[in-house]
């Protein structure tokens, strides 16, 4: 059975990491739990990200698929993985659009492979939307409330 849903790394349009791009195909969450050597996995919206927690040490890449940008489950998946201490690449793939970038970044995504490549200038502006933020999230930025009470 071929569980490989691999994408070549050059489809990653934005990456906020200095390490080597993982160039191996991803497997499904189920396969990842059964297969002790998988280092890259792909989460679909209905998957429970928490089942990956025991395997985070060996994973170098987790892709979170957004088949439709309106399905926001992937944002929770991303934060849950970062909260569990995952430090590898967290890549948003699929229907990833300009206006989701700033929120995705805050939820812990550090790589983006949109189905349709995005305008570089628009994306740059989008990543920089918020000078400050109201909530504590995976990016661990100091919140406005914290800044007010320094």
């Amino acid at each position, binding site marked *: 059975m071929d569980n490989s849903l691999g994408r070549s790394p050059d489809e990653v349009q934005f990456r906020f990491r200095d390490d080597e791009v993982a160039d191996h195909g991803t497997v499904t969450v189920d396969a990842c739990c059964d297969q002790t050597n998988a280092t890259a996995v792909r989460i679909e919206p209905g998957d429970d990200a928490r089942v990956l927690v025991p395997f985070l040490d060996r994973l170098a890449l987790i892709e979170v698929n957004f088949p439709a*940008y309106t399905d926001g489950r992937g*944002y929770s998946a991303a934060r849950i993985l970062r909260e569990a201490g995952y430090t590898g690449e967290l890549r948003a793939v699929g229907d990833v659009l300009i206006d989701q970038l700033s929120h995705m970044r805050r939820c812990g995504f550090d790589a983006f492979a949109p189905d349709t490549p995005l305008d570089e200038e628009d994306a740059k502006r989008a990543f920089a939307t918020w000078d400050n933020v109201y*909530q504590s999230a995976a990016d661990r930025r100091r919140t406005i409330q914290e800044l*007010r*009470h320094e």
Partner: protein
Amino acid sequence: MYKYDHYDQAMVDARVEEFRDQARRRLEGKLTEDQFKPLRLMNGLYLQLHAYMLRVAIPYGTLNSRQMTALGDIADKYDRGYGHFTTRQNIQYNWIKLEDAADILADLAKVEMHAIQTSGNCIRNISSDHFAGATYDELVDPRPYAELLRQWSSFHPEFTYLPRKFKIAVIAAEKDRAAMRLHDIGIQIVEQNGEIGARFFVGGGMGRTPMIAPMIRDFVPLDQLVTYAEACLRVYNRYGRRDNKYKARIKILVHELGAEEYTRQVEEEFAHLLGQGIEPPRDELERIKPFFADPPFEDGPKMVDRSDPDFALWVDRNTVRHKHNSYVSAVISLKPVGGIPGDATGEQIRTMARLAKQYSFDELRVMHTQNIVLPHVKIADLHALWTELDAADLGAPNLDTVEDIIACPGLDYCALANARSITVAQRISENFAAKRRTEELGELKLKISGCINACGHHHAGHIGILGVDKKGKENYQLSLGGSEAEDVSLAKITGPGFDEDGVVQAVETVTDVYLKHREDGERFLDTYRRIGMDPFKEALYG
């Protein structure tokens, strides 16, 4: 009143710029209408039957006269001279041009206002008690807690693409004036062993499947309030249904899992999130509280001169007991007999703003019943206030009466409507006013929706009217016995529906039954609860 600091202002300004950019990309064809739609929705811009509608957020329904004046100016400058106050304690404009939207948002930002998250599948504007900070019966002012949650819910990175819209209400009295348990999350600020905390009700709502929210936690300490809300939302975001938009509200999740199982999952997530340190510093609440401190009340007369009967009637009907005995909260009815519920002209909006400045420490509230409150009016000033209101056609003495009807926009504006709501409301109020029966009927909450989405709260009406489509004809279902207050209940359908004339008559018929059966001091709702549906059915269908 809460005042933005440079951080809050920068957040709103950033959003206005973001929207300008989105509109530009739409115009340049980089965004399809499908891709643009959720973005404009998150900025409160809806496409309706005839034009765009813009919803403006009024956090917890509180605003000052400068903001109110700006709302009046927008009505004149960009709409057809009207604004429409809604059951969400917001205002909306029904005749907006897409190309004006960014300019309106910029005008709003100048007075610390915006249209952020007034639609779309995100956490909406937070509602609260319209008498907060003024009423005698509250534990504390609920608005600092609502403000804390406003900040938390604004541009929340994880909860912007929820399964469905999400509405939160915060109150702090036993009396519920915000339909708290008909919200996705209802929060009641309570005291336990001398400590203030929050009681959480989750999974209420109206729409096609009305539900009353069950309590899931009787006490959340204040320094865990945001964390607990985050846990409630995360469980919903992960497990709320996305396969069917009619089953996507959190009420369905809570119902399908059962309140107990939902609660268990929330508690588990909560325990996890406590370890993540996401709660804002406790000092933040202390920073917010003084913004809502009492204005400098002064002692004065406690009685009015009742020699003018019209004035006396208005005082009896439209003023409400205040925590300071020389003051009252005065309700400005936007329900003149035969008028459109919740509508006000630009001129009237500016008049209300001016009167708030003169008589109510510069503060106004929007009620979910589509009226306006001047929260702190000196009893000594009431006659002068009433005289001015009356001159501006804002003096209808009908708070909580059968004329004080909630009605959604219905078929006159709304693309989803089956039937008109506004004309039915107009005819009913005209009918009771002409027969001079309003006063005799006392408190009677009548609510009308033009379709099953229930924007007009018909499930929660003492009398509810729902527009349905019957073989291409407008038809109205009547229901009885609902309440959105602390005695919350859902109305029950009487039987077969009526045409427009028929439903106007049917409302009169059920009030006749009430008058015949009522016992001392009973409201319509009390009588209905005591005698049940049968006598009403009998009178309606014989």
